[in-house]
């Protein structure tokens, strides 16, 4: 089993290094193929591990080698595949494999083809390290690794120039990449602090030992650790207020958005909370806070998606919103539900993104959905794929999203947190609306693209075959809810609905389905027959507010980025040069001036010298007297 583990882990690394060799060469199809194959191998190995566990096998562990051994700190490259990890691995490698294959199509004309695969595979490796590590520091390796890969991939088209925010809200790929990296770093500090707390109080960083000794932590420390770790999660999973990077990260190539910014990396935060469930179960207040924040983000992101015109940004907001759902579930203690939604979301959201990729490809990278419409004629298959994904996202029976999202709502109800439930319920409606607003605006209605001179074309068939696994899973994954629960609750705490909830479950399902369907219908009415723009609405305050993401990026710009730059400038010019360095030079100058002044007495005139000699006699007498008197 250990071998399988290593194959799953290192196949992507090999892939990455292989691609890296040719990174500066022209496109080589071979690179794409080899990379995809290696990722598929990794997927197969992961699946084998999953099946091993499914068949009741023991948790697989492996120790590669020592890493940091200093003082009492003993951190190894230790790996562990338990049920949660296995699920994560399969999700990650599956989506990765699909995305890799898909990228052969999407990036076919890109000059950085080889480089792209190198980065992408490196990401998969990092992500696997993240989920497979058996200790917090190993997780941190993956955590930072995915951050870097995300940075590389978002900034993949680094040569694009900066544009004003009004033209491109993300400014430029390199800007977006840096923003993502830096925001994540802010959160990483939190994670690091969490690790410090655990290390100094428990003396270990290995999950099993940490969780076994949790009772040694005092209450305050436990809260602190939980908060610190959650801050880390907030960054990676783009929770408010560290959310702005995610939408901007859409500057990266679409497969990247699909893999990293929808299916895998952004869920790492959720994974962390799930992984640290023994800790969070002990601090329900923190859990509740997480749930509330998640709920807030869910509706907050959804609201922004309502008015956005950018194909990818809409999906990005929906990702954000769905991450909110996951945190809501995890925060309320339903860890397996969160994981379930995580997996389901990975499948349908990746599918959605890759579909969007097809559209973009067809539309020469145009993203404005107002410039699309009526694409179903040329892109029927894509329409189907995206439609299914959107249905899943909207939570329509029997698609995957229905099961996972409904369960979350049930949990919220079960916990008697009706506020949360209500907001999430409302969000479900919004989700359905904006998803289908997008779908209809792209595929239905008048063919506005013609006006702009686009000549869309459908992707080749093999692409759709490649996407098939995702399509299938987006439909059927929810059907395995019970099996899934049984499997993962082997290590996650089981979450049982109360009797009462069981009784009202069907009402809840109905309510949710109703609002979802309502949303879709509303979208259909408004957009299926073409785009009718209402300047009054578009000029309204709320519309503007939403369109400008509540002005948060602008606010960050004005309140943090610019002041920081200005303050830095002041620190350099006013403090460093004018004060500190000037003091140093001033001392030197003062010494020199003293020398210059005192040599004036050396005026060359003998008479002066003689007088100074007499004066010297007087001075030394005074000094002698004074030194006696003082004593």
């Amino acid at each position, binding site marked *: 089993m250990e071998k399988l583990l290593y194959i799953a882990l290192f196949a992507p690394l090999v892939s990455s290094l292989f691609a890296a060799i040719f990174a500066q060469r022209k496109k080589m199809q071979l690179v794409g193929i080899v990379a995809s194959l290696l990722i598929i191998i990794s997927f197969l190995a992961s699946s084998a591990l999953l099946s091993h566990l499914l068949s009741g096998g023991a948790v697989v562990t492996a120790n590669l080698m020592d890493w940091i051994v200093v003082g009492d700190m003993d951190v190894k490259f230790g790996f562990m595949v338990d049920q949660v990890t296995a699920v994560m691995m399969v999700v990650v490698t599956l989506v990765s494999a699909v995305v890799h294959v898909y990228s052969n199509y999407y990036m076919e004309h890109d000059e950085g083809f080889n480089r792209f695969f190198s980065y992408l595979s490196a990401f998969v490796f990092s992500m696997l390290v993240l989920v497979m590590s058996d200790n917090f520091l190993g997780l941190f390796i993956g955590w930072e690794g995915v951050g870097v890969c995300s940075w590389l991939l978002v900034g993949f088209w680094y040569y694009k120039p900066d544009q004003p925010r009004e033209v491109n809200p993300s400014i430029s790929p390199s800007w977006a990449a840096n923003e993502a990296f830096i925001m994540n770093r802010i959160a990483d500090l939190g994670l690091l602090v969490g690790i410090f707390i655990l290390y100094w109080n428990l003396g270990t960083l290995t999950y099993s030992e940490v969780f076994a000794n949790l009772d040694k932590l005092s209450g305050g420390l436990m809260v602190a650790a939980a908060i610190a770790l959650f801050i880390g999660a907030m960054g990676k999973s783009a929770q408010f207020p560290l959310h702005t990077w995610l939408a901007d990260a859409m500057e990266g190539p679409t497969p990247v958005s699909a893999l990293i910014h929808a299916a895998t990396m952004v869920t790492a935060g959720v994974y962390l909370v799930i992984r640290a469930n023994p800790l969070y179960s002990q601090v329900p207040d923190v859990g509740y806070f997480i749930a509330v924040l998640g709920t807030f983000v869910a509706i907050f992101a959804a609201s922004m998606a309502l008015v956005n015109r950018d194909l990818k940004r809409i999906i990005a907001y929906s990702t954000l919103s769905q991450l909110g759902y996951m945190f809501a579930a995890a925060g309320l203690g339903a860890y397996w539900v969160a994981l379930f939604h995580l997996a389901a979301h990975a499948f349908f959201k990746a599918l959605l993104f890759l579909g969007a990729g097809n559209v973009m490809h067809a539309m020469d990278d145009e993203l404005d959905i107002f410039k699309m419409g009526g694409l179903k004629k040329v892109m029927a298959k894509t329409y189907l794929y995206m439609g299914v994904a959107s249905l899943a996202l909207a939570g329509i029976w029997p698609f995957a999203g229905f099961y996972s999202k409904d369960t979350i709502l049930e949990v919220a109800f079960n916990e008697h947190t009706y506020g949360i439930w209500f907001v999430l319920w409302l969000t479900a409606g919004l989700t359905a609306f904006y998803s289908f607003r997008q779908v209809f605006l792209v595929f239905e209605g008048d063919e506005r693209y013609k006006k702009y001179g686009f000549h869309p074309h459908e992707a080749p068939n093999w692409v759709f075959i490649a996407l098939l696994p995702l399509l299938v899973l987006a439909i059927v994954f929810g059907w395995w809810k019970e099996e899934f629960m049984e499997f993962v609750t082997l290590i996650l705490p089981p979450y049982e609905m109360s009797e009462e909830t069981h009784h009202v479950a069907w009402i809840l399902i109905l309510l949710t389905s109703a609002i979802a369907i309502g949303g879709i219908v509303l979208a259909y009415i408004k957009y299926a027959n073409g785009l009718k723009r209402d300047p009054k609405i578009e000029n309204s305050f709320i519309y503007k507010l939403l369109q400008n993401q509540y002005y948060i990026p602008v606010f960050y710009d004005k309140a943090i980025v610019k002041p920081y730059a200005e303050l830095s400038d002041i620190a350099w010019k006013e403090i460093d040069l004018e004060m500190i360095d000037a003091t140093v030079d001033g001392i030197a100058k003062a010494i020199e001036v003293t020398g210059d002044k005192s*040599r004036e007495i*050396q*005026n*060359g*005139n*003998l*008479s002066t010298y*003689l*007088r100074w000699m*007499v004066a010297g006699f007087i001075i030394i007498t005074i000094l002698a007297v004074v030194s006696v008197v003082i004593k």
Partner: protein
Amino acid sequence: MSLTLTHYLILSVILFVIGMIGVIRRKNLLMLFFATEIMLNAANVALVALSSYIGDLTGQLFALFIMAIAASEVAVGLGLLILVYKKQGTLDLDNLTLLKG
């Protein structure tokens, strides 16, 4: 009022100060050298007075040697003055300010 050692010593001090005034006041080097002679003589007065009051001869011998020193100084000093006068045509020390700073 009998004469005491102090009287002599005060005389010595007065002479010394007069010499000192000459040294710090004079600009003409020749006359400045006169003043240095006065200073040395003042010391001689003190030494001889002390010698006489203590009854010890050292002071007188010291004074004797100081006279020799004074004489030697005059010789060397005059040599220098002649040199300066030959080169510069003046004995005013205000003209000797090439070296300064």
